[in-house]
């Protein structure tokens, strides 16, 4: 086990080979921006955690008025409006998905909604899924989404902080990933389907707070990152029905310094591909496919809040073999990283006056 732990922590920083890039501020004055989606016309939609959806037009101008029709969200601490994701047929249907926190301080959790965007506002909004049970506090919601090639989507969730043991309970949604059809139904091949004691939407369990998700179509891999407590942030490859161990296994300790568990790994649980100890607080995650940075082809990019950086992860045969620290010069908590249709990287900084930043080749 010791050897395994060393291996997990081993792929360390190249750090020196700064790519030949330039950082451009596209938009400033975004309040805790959380996620962005690229529109077919070259514009972008950006969520702000307090509950606003903002439109950045194809010229890079931020529309002053927020997009109307966003569902009411519970905005407090980590709670609020999370991700915006376009439906696969968005160009025809105008449909998009929003994840957000519902409820109030005493009873809340993560919801998934769908609405139609006409370029100005949202209409025909509907709630497709709400994680249950509603819990107290305003921490650990997950809220990221990814589309799978079989026309389903995966929504990440969190353990609600105080309810960490419930991440091992398949009878609720806390600390899990759920897989849904694009209409919010339960796919008939979901791994927990048929288990009467489990929620049928579950796709995997044993997570703490999943903050990044990427589907790699070339490797047919679903990858997520999740926050550990103090240490033990993880990169995981998701297998349907697998249990990732939280809180029975962790490479981190509690914020007080106390051990949450004496076990870093146990045979019953799927270990992480990589863990970050000390924590970097990973947030968004993107897979690079594009022409602007040929050297980055197929690499993972993980934005970090506490780490105030982006980690570039180089993989070989399913393993992370090297990491590179990027964009520390911003000196900012980075909430999300995306690859635009132009092949540039886009970053969102997590501040009351947050920014949308584009990474372009220097030349």
């Amino acid at each position, binding site marked *: 086990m010791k050897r395994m732990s060393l291996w997990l922590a081993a792929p360390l920083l190249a750090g020196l080979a700064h790519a030949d890039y330039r950082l451009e501020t596209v938009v400033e004055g975004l309040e805790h921006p959380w996620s962005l989606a690229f529109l077919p016309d070259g514009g972008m939609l950006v969520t702000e955690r307090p509950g606003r959806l903002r439109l950045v037009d194809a010229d890079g101008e931020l529309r002053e008025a927020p997009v109307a029709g966003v569902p009411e969200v519970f905005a407090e601490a980590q709670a609020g409006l999370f991700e915006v994701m376009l439906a696969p047929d968005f160009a025809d249907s105008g449909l998009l998905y929003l994840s957000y926190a519902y409820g109030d301080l005493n009873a809340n959790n993560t919801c998934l909604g769908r609405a139609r965007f006409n370029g100005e506002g949202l209409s025909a909004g509907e709630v497709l899924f709400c994680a249950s049970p509603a819990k107290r506090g305003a921490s650990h919601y997950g809220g990221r989404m990814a589309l799978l090639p079989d026309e389903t989507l995966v929504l990440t969730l969190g353990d609600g902080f*105080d309810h960490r*043991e419930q991440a091992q309970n398949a009878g609720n949604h806390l600390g899990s990933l759920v897989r849904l059809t694009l209409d919010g139904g339960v796919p008939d091949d979901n791994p927990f389907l048929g288990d009467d004691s489990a929620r049928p939407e579950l796709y995997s369990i044993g997570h703490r707070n999943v903050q990044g998700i990427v589907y790699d179509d070339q490797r047919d891999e679903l990858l997520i990152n999740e926050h550990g407590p103090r240490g033990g942030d993880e990169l995981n490859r998701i297998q349907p029905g697998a249990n990732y161990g939280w809180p029975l296994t962790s490479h981190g300790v509690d914020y007080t*310094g*106390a051990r949450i568990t*004496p076990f870093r790994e146990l045979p019953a649980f799927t270990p992480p591909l990589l863990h970050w100890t000390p924590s970097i607080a990973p947030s968004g995650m993107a897979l690079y496919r594009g022409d602007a940075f040929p050297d980055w082809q197929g690499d993972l990019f993980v934005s970090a809040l506490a780490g105030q950086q982006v980690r570039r992860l180089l993989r070989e045969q399913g393993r992370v073999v090297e990491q590179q620290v990027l964009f520390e010069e911003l000196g900012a908590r980075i909430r999300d990283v995306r690859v635009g249709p132009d092949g540039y990287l886009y970053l969102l900084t997590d501040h009351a006056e947050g920014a949308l930043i584009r990474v372009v080749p220097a030349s």
Partner: protein
Amino acid sequence: MIEKWRTRLKGFVLALLVTTLSGSLIQTQFNLAAIAALGAEISLTTRLTTSVHDLLGFAPLYAGLVAAVLAAALPLAALVRRWLALPAGLLYPLAAALGLWLALLVVDALAPMPTLIAATRSLSGTLAMLGGAALGGLVYACCRAGRTS
């Protein structure tokens, strides 16, 4: 006069030690109980090493909180004794426990997470931690009694 303050300081330090160490050990057992309830086997060795880990990792931070609690609660209790003829063996433990309870409420209200010390998520865990503080208060009362007897 110097002797009086020396006794109080000794009592305070002992109360701080007892409250901190007992609290650390208590919260470790609650955390391990939660892990065991999920099906993990906790051997005696694991229990001991985890307890020692927490004495090194958790106790220093907890000592800061306890020191602040006792520094406020014990003098306040001494003040109350001037008007209320309650036995020291009751008043000081009560003051220490109430002080810790208030401190936990304040910390949880200010900290970004709902509950900072995981063992205090449950009533039984909170009461156990308060019991540790009461024990510290009792030690302080004994020290004072020892001086006056």
